[in-house]
């Protein structure tokens, strides 16, 4: 289809602006550029940021957020939205800081059960046709409640192994770059280059098509929610390793930030339309924006608002681009 016949070009000609705008807001190009620009501004403000140590310092806090964004991306790929990922990561953090050091077996069992519970949540949403927003919001209180039962006030001590794992780095290439690259490549290859990856992406946009092709829609939902759970725990792993302690509320801001990351990264709420590279870049944009605001001395209470504003702005611009495209194509 990419080989354009003269007719196709002529019909596409009048809406170059629209399609160019649409293309610019497409999967991964724009968020990557935005992330690079924000990073460039930070380097311009503080040149030390570009050094390996600086990179580690600036990017390390973003690693847990990127994992949360990827977890959210799997749920959005299923056509759903996850409002519970923040509390889930908080519970993971508490288990790693309190249960794991005392009883390794029990801690690992709890973490495994958490992933199973996430998958079960996917089954419930798929089988009963429930709105994911309400179910995940309800479950977020369950995760939070369990975390508070285990650890009423912030505390605990994360095992040294997790801490050294999270702080892994090499003298030449900063550890954060390695982690980011490996995760992005592995997830992107899985979703974009494997057969099951295509089925998973398809289940959100065209569940009926996936069903008719002989795949179980419920199984795809279970897979996506289980993946979300696993990436939520990876986020908790890095968060625990970096902070060294447990706090049920540690990741509460990740709910909005992860959704914003996926959407800024070119994802769509219609489901199926997600880009792994875009989501990682979107997470970087959202996270770096927070660091940049901190750099220029904006109070932390306004950071959430600024990050929310970026989300709204992207959606408004995208609606505008879609609208321009529609107007041009109908003319």
């Amino acid at each position, binding site marked *: 289809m990419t080989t354009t016949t003269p007719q196709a070009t002529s019909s596409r000609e009048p809406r170059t602006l629209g399609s160019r705008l649409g293309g610019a807001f497409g999967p991964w190009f724009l968020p990557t550029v935005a992330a690079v620009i924000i990073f460039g501004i930070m380097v311009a403000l503080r040149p030390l940021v570009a050094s390996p140590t600086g990179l580690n310092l600036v990017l390390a806090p973003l690693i847990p957020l990127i994992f949360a964004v990827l977890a959210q991306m799997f749920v959005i790929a299923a056509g759903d*939205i996850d*409002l519970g990922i923040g509390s889930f990561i908080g519970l993971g953090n508490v288990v790693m800081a309190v249960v794991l050091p005392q009883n390794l077996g029990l801690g690992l069992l709890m973490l495994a059960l958490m992933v199973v519970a996430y998958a079960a949540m996917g089954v*419930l949403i*798929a*089988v*009963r*046709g*429930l*709105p994911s*927003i*309400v*179910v995940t*919001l*309800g*479950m*977020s*209180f*369950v995760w*939070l*409640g*369990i*975390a*508070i*039962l285990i650890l*009423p006030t912030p505390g605990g001590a994360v095992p040294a192994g997790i801490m050294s794992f999270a702080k892994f780095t090499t003298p030449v290439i900063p550890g954060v770059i390695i982690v980011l690259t490996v995760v992005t490549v592995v997830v992107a290859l899985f979703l974009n280059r494997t057969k099951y990856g295509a089925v998973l992406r398809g289940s959100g946009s065209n569940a009926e098509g996936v069903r008719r092709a002989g795949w179980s829609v419920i199984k795809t939902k279970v897979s996506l929610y289980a993946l979300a759970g696993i990436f939520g725990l990876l986020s908790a792993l890095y968060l625990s390793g970096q902070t060294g302690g447990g706090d049920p509320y540690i990741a509460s801001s990740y709910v*909005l930030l992860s*959704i914003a990351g996926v*959407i800024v990264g070119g994802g769509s*709420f219609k489901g199926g339309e997600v880009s792994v590279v875009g989501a990682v870049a979107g997470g970087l944009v959202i996270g770096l924006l927070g660091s940049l605001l901190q750099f220029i001395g904006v109070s932390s*209470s*306004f950071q*959430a*608002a600024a990050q*929310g*504003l970026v*989300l*709204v702005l992207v*959606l*408004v611009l995208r*609606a505008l681009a*879609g609208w321009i495209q529609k107007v041009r194509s109908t003319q």
Partner: protein
Amino acid sequence: MTDLDTRVATRPRTPKLSDRALRVLKHAAAPAFIGMIIVWLAIGAIAGRGLWDTLSAGVIIATFLVIVGIGQLFVITVGNGGIDLSVSYVMTLSAFLSCQIMAGQDGNIVAGLVGGVVAGVLAGTVSAILIEFVGMPPLVGTLAVGFGLQTITLIYSGSVVGVASPALAAFTTAQIGPIPIFGLLGIVIAVIFAIILKRTSYGRRVEAVGQKPIAAGFAGTNPALIRASAYVISGGMAGLAGVFLAAYSGGPSLGLGSSYQLASIAVVVLGGSLIAGGRGIVSGLWAGAVLLTLLTTLANITRLSGGWQFIIQGALIVIVLALSKNPLARK
């Protein structure tokens, strides 16, 4: 037109009018009322407190939830994935605004109430525009407005020291004989909105749009406008609840509305309204609000940890959703 309206108005019920008790039990609001009575009796049995005192205290505190919940019910009932995640922020902002207007003077009660409600209506209008005319998903539109309001409140609350009018504060706890006036107000508001939803042309349109927007459109209703109106109502109701709650709790605080976000959705679900939209049950919502309030009382008198309260509230909403009738459920 009228023919169609009446047809929509009659809910599918068992035609057997003879078995009245069964009909009452089969009503969608019945589980909420039964649950409310069970918890009420349980408190009486455990605490040995007067049953009437327990109920009247519960009904007073539930009224805030009833008022917010009704707004949420309208948003959920218009369907299209409608949900209002800004109510807690609207409540907090309205609380600060109304207390500044009232400034501890009884003469300013009306101005304070109007100010709080108008602020909520404005917030709801912005949500409605973002969702229905920009095309954002309800989750993102209301969350974006919520974060905007949170920022406004953060900036604004630093400069005001507002006090609610003493008369309004007294009103929220006043009693005529054994009957709490504020609790009565909650019932009156619930009855008014039940009549609006079930007996007026507007209310029938709200449910019709939630059931089949296209059919409602053919019947001469503008679905986008009806949906937009629901967000405006929700904003106004949240504003009203914020004013009353500030008066009741002696003054505004930044965390004033936070517990009402999940609770406002929970009472809609508990009350037997369809989460997918198309059927709103205000009587069930009232019972659900009293049930939730009494559950908190029960948790407090049995000295249950705060963690358990979160778990119970979260699990309750998920379990009720899982068990409730749902037209979207897979067979």
